[in-house]
């Protein structure tokens, strides 16, 4: 069976598929680190935003608005080109040379490249601003009556938060958070512009070498779908133990 002409002559050679898989792994690794860091930072921002002091609240709001209302692309370029310009020459040189930390048992840990660090920083700050918005909405979604009832029972503010508000808020934010994590996976694609060799980068590389645009982007698209699907399955609500699995 001959493939249709628009598909091109060949399918991709195995080593191109390995490039693409490596790209997908790097995208997944970057997304995982960003999700963890952005959730922590987002929680902190939510707490700061709830502060009663204007000196804390106003800078927090400004930070959130700046990061939400400018393109991630510009933020990436700003961190990559802009911040590297601010660093002293010694630090720049150190960041641009590879460093490997030898661990026991023959393992080693490579210090990430400057591109990776810039990508991580920009993605984390951007994602944290959106995650903070979801967390805030989740906390607001818990009725004030719940807080009042908890106080009437004699719980302290911290106990009220920990045992009454937080469990309900977590139920509300579950789905939006999975949505934000999905966005993180998709947003890692932008880091190709500063030279992080993730999935979009490798798809372009394969396309340039083989001229098989359709195949390169089809494989990359399927790999992105797989990453997102993996996240959404693992983010599903667990079936309670007392309910038999369907």
């Amino acid at each position: 069976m001959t493939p249709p002409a628009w598909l091109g002559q060949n399918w991709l050679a195995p080593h191109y598929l390995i490039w693409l898989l490596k790209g997908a792994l790097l995208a997944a690794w970057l997304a995982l680190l960003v999700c963890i860091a952005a959730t922590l930072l987002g929680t902190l921002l939510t707490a700061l935003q709830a502060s009663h002091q204007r000196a804390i609240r106003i800078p927090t709001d400004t930070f959130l608005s700046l990061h939400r209302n400018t393109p991630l692309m510009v933020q990436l370029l700003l961190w990559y080109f802009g911040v590297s310009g601010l660093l002293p020459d010694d630090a720049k040189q150190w960041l641009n040379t590879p460093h490997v930390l030898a661990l026991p048992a023959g393992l080693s840990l490579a210090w990430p490249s400057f591109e990776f660090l810039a990508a991580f920083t920009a993605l984390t700050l951007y994602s944290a601003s959106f995650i903070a918005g979801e967390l805030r909405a989740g906390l607001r979604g818990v009725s004030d009556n719940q807080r009042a009832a908890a106080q009437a029972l004699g719980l302290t503010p911290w106990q009220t938060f920990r045992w009454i508000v937080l469990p309900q808020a977590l139920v509300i934010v579950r789905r939006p958070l999975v949505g934000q994590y999905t966005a993180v996976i998709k947003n890692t694609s932008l880091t190709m512009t500063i030279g992080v060799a993730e999935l979009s980068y490798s798809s372009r590389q394969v396309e340039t070498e083989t001229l098989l645009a359709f195949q390169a982007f089809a494989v990359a698209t399927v790999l992105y779908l797989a990453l997102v699907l993996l996240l959404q399955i693992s983010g599903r609500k667990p079936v309670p133990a007392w309910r038999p699995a369907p």
Partner: protein
Amino acid sequence: MPDFLASNLDYLLWGNLAHGAPGGLLLSLLMSVAAGIVASALGLAGGTALVMGGPRLRSVLKTLVVLLRAIPVLMLIFWCYFLLPILFGIDIPGVLTVIAALAIINAAYLSQSVQSGIEAIGRGQWGAGLSLGLTRWQTLRHIVLPQALRIMLPSFINQWITLIKDTSLAYVVGVAEFTFVATQVNNREQVYPLQIFAFVGLGYLLVCGGLELLGRRWERRWRYGAA
């Protein structure tokens, strides 16, 4: 105004407009408007079809929306940029392929907002329309949609803001919009990367922030104003 900015300001804002090639912030805005109009129209149509269509049409559209929402915009831009010209066998300017990609992806998001907006209108409204002798489509057009559009307005505004920010992705395929032009200026000047990209960020911030404020005013007027 610093020197490097003053000498590049025209180029950053409208590219080579004098030579008939709009670029910079102006091109970003033009792309946003074009993709925004197409996306809104497609989104309205898609959302309506998700509510009113038959089971087969609905499941096809649903799958399409889920798929489009799961892939990066950048991937879709690559698809359109590299494959639309092959598919049609003609040379399509990069700007148009990016506008097409942005319109498609934002239409997918909007059709879901439109669907939930329509579904948020109570069944009583449908029943009232039908019992007055209106057809399903007349009920939708004259009774349900006018109310649903108010509910949808915030998600439309959010989506437009996302779209404006996403025009910056056109940078990857070499369209001379705001971000691309900024990297050109940055490569030429070499000395002020932080200032240049901060200026560009500020430009987007003003446009997106302005749209957000405008949206809030519309919402207030729509909520309290006469129907």
